[in-house]
């Protein structure tokens, strides 16, 4: 077995020392690259780089990649346009070896709201029927993840409005509210700081309430007409809403559907002998009348 000579031992020792120095130099340089941990989107900054000689600098971000030759020993200038997108960035500096460090770009102040209001039409006096969702973005359309106050202002066409303040979570603020008592346009505004967005929901009458029909006989014909058809809050049901008149006489059962025109529904039916007439709007039933006898 060959024995290791003193000169071989010295050679290995030098190699080990060189390897250690190389590793330590790499470690030292990695420790030297110190970008700030977080930066606001669109803000320029610089990273000091000690050393000397030429090097190559890389910046790899969510929507931007930079590669440029630099002189070590001077500051690395990161321009505002290099850091517009929020997210994680990696700076890499290479000369004979490469070293890297991450930093995070966070969204700037709220500058845009993306506001969705649902639905576009809603019956009056319906609990939890209006939903508003606002996404909070900065000027570069990064979602603002820092909680931001979003004020929802609900303004009905008649009656008093009200406001609700919600704190955004992960850039989203949402609210749910009841529709008010009166039909018409309701404006909902979402605002955060100086930014605001408005949307409109149309409130329409709810189901018919206290539906009444009156009958005017004339020979074997009878004219049927409802009172103005309203919901329980007094809102007139829209024209076109279908009202069903049902007649039961000795010939059998007859149903006529007729739309509301100018707030009332009207039709004419022939009756044979004594007849029982009823009225309905969807699942809502109204009064009953008897004809060819006492009304």
């Amino acid at each position: 077995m060959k024995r290791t000579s003193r000169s071989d031992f010295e050679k290995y020792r030098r190699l080990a020392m060189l390897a250690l120095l190389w590793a330590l130099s790499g470690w030292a340089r990695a420790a030297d690259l110190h970008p700030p941990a977080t930066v606001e989107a669109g803000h320029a900054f610089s990273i000091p780089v000690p050393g000397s000689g030429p090097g190559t600098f890389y910046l790899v971000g969510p929507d931007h990649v930079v590669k440029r030759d630099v002189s070590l020993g001077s500051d690395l200038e990161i321009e505002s346009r290099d850091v517009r997108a929020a997210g994680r960035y990696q700076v890499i500096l290479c000369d004979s070896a490469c070293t890297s460090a991450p930093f995070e770009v966070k969204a700037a102040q709220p500058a845009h709201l993306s506001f969705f209001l649902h639905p576009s039409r809603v019956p009056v006096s319906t609990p939890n029927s209006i939903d508003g969702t606002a996404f909070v973005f900065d000027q570069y359309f990064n979602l603002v993840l820092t909680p931001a106050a979003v004020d929802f202002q609900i303004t009905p066409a008649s009656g008093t409005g009200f406001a609700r303040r919600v704190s955004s979570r992960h850039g989203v603020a949402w609210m749910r509210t009841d529709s008010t008592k009166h039909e018409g346009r309701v404006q909902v505004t979402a605002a955060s700081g100086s930014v605001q967005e408005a949307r409109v929901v149309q409130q329409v009458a709810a189901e018919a309430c206290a539906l009444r029909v009156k009958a005017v006989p004339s020979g074997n014909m009878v004219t049927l007409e409802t009172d103005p058809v309203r919901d329980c809050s007094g809102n007139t049901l829209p024209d076109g809403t279908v009202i069903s008149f049902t007649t039961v006489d000795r010939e059998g059962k007859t149903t006529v559907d007729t739309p509301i025109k100018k707030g009332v529904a009207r039709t004419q039916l022939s009756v044979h002998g004594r007849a029982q007439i009823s009225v309905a709007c969807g699942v809502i039933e109204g009064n009953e009348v008897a004809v060819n006898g006492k009304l």
Partner: protein
Amino acid sequence: MKGMAPMRLSLQLSLNRLSLCFFKASSFVLAAGLLAMAQSAPQVHLDADGLAPRPIEELTGQTIARYYALAWRDMASALDSNNAAGLGEEFVGFAKDRLTRRIAEQKQTGVHVRIVDHGHRLKAVFYSTDGAAMQLLDQAELEIQTLDGNKLLDTQNAPREYLVLVTPGADRWYIRDLEEVSAKPF
């Protein structure tokens, strides 16, 4: 003793059935290998427990997980090949604009990024009442290598967290915003 093997099999089948019973409707596991379409897609697990203001339907959860896996597969391929056409149809809006720009600049500088994807744990945190938008937090296990040509510049191998905004389309869910955030457990 001869009857023990069928008994053990029967017991195992019963346990399997029992475990299926415990399957939570709001928790979906998508094994990439199960779908021919997503053979090289990473594994995505979606947890939608306590989602507000709207709960998630099982089929919706499966669709989101499937298309999210495809999106990551396509994004990894596009960032490696510097070919924006490879992004597929899973990205729209800001997400697509940003990725397209990045790929163009990667190509210009000769940089490319190789992602070894070890899977994603998605937590659904917001689903709008009208079903028009969903927000997800993704805890991803990724190994990311940055290369200039063939020269390896940097390797990162740490858990990453992304905030994702997805919106529904005719037959799929699209990624509208994908933003990496400070990694912390959720």
